[in-house]
């Protein structure tokens, strides 16, 4: 399926390109905009980004695969990221991870059948002083324990 940016997003892209002397540098920004519009970075999104920046699709693919925040498959409406790195681990990060897994019935990088949730074990998110933590899409939830994490998941479920 062909992918085209909306008029509004094309304006954002123009603004991003203007930040740099070489428009290739805008590729990370534009991939984010594509991911936001499409939900994930599909081959069509990459081709369109390549078109706009006059790059080869392979170059764009190279960028996408280098970074962890571009999703190469559709994720859930709520993408739950659980940090299990040292500082979180010392304060129960793995317990949180296991409880989310159980609660959602999915494993790392999987999506629930209703497409509402996806789960990712992430590396340090910079919440070491407020560990353990999870992030739901762009929002951090810190100073958690198992019960509070379950409350968060539950309240997200109830929203839908």
């Amino acid at each position, binding site marked *: 399926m062909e992918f085209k940016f909306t008029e509004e997003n094309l304006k954002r892209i123009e603004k991003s390109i203007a930040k740099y002397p070489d428009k290739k540098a805008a590729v990370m920004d534009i*991939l984010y905009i594509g991911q936001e519009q499409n939900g994930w970075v599909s081959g069509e999104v990459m081709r369109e980004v390549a078109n706009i920046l006059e790059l080869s699709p392979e170059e764009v693919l190279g960028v996408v695969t280098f970074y962890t925040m571009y999703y190469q498959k559709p994720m859930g409406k709520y993408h739950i990221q659980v940090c299990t790195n040292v500082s979180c*681990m010392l304060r129960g990060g793995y317990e949180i991870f296991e409880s989310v897994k159980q609660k959602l019935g999915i494993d790392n990088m999987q999506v629930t059948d209703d497409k509402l949730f996806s789960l990712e074990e992430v590396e340090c998110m910079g919440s070491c002083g407020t560990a353990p933590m999870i992030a739901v899409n762009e*929002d951090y939830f810190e100073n958690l324990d198992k019960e509070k994490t379950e409350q968060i998941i539950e309240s997200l479920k109830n929203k839908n």
Partner: protein
Amino acid sequence: MERIVLPEIKDLNKLEVYLQNEGYSAAKKAFSQTSDDIIDQVKKSGLRGRGGAAFSAGLKWSFMPKTSVKPKYLCINGDESEPGSFKDRQIFESNPHQLIEGILIASYAIGAKTAYLYIRGEYHKWIKLMEKALSDAYEQGFVGDKMKERFGTDFFCDIYIHKGAGAYICGEESSLMNSLEGKRGYPRVKPPFPAQNGLWGCPTTINNVETITNVPPIINKGWEWFSRIGEPKHPGTLLYGISGHVNKPGIYELPSGTLLTDLIYNYAGGVPGNKKILCVIPGGSSMPPLRGEQIEGIKMDAESLKAYGTAIGTGGVIVMDEDTDLVKVLARIAKFYHHESCGQCTPCREGTGWMLKILERMVKGEGTSHDLDLLISVANNIEGNTICALGEAAAWPVKFMVQRFRDYFEKRVKNEVDLPVPNKVHSMRNTKFPLAELNIP
């Protein structure tokens, strides 16, 4: 003790409050002097980089060519991804304008008309906060071409935020530049160094967020004042981040050279349950760890820690109590560096995987004494054999943890360690914290 980077002033993140507190007066003062004068003052202040290497900031600036037909660039490294480090987000949140003012002064000193602030992608909230501060500063003419009227100077500078996308390696300066140019974040071979050949082949300086935020007070209050704070060889305050098994984890801004025990017991409230400390990592997960019984009397600054065979790094202190399973911790650290190795250099790409495999075997209780030597051997073969310092970052914790805790690891592979619960890395979170607002569209 006066705080330099995170002063206790309410709403300092707002431009009007920052202005009421002498905000942007250091920039005005700087623009009335020559760029050489500014570099000289920062050099004399003794300000050292807060991103890990603790290199003299003024000296770094002086490496920039005085004249250049190509444009010059300033990059501010806010990629902050080292486990145990969470200081820069406090600056974005509480004192963004001092960071912006520092960027202006640094740009003026090195002759850059464009500065990029690279912030890690996960920091959505803090990117928005910085964007807000930056757009306020633009609107009022503190940044951009309106600076000429605001400051009455010919100098002006644009600041742009570049959002990362989840790669630890992009905190390495040459990798950061490749990422900024829209490439895979592979580190570059040095030389050439960024001051000669940086962003788009142009002279470039890269400084850490905290380093740059220290600059305005140095210009305003003078280098003598700054150089007298804390340890003379590494002066100023540091944003110490304490995490792990302490009662009050968080960021504490204190003079350099603060005692590690002071930090843990007086500021961070000690270890829960008054347990003994088994291990402390003093500067972020890549730094060589210290044994709990040796921390008495250790000062937290670059030179003092060097004497103990470790380093200040980012000032991220991770405390582990006596019930911690060090093998499990080390396996987790190894997993991180294996995940984050960019894959360019064979010793790092392959070696980090081997170290992880060996450690995972040990976690399962299937390790042997021979594995301990094997770990050190693999680590030694990574160290010094890679393009960038991620090699060392991956090798050091493994090598030094095994060497310094050899007795513990020997017992552990013989299944003789008295772990209250086998393989347990415990949760200590039983206090009640308010839940954050759910704010999802």
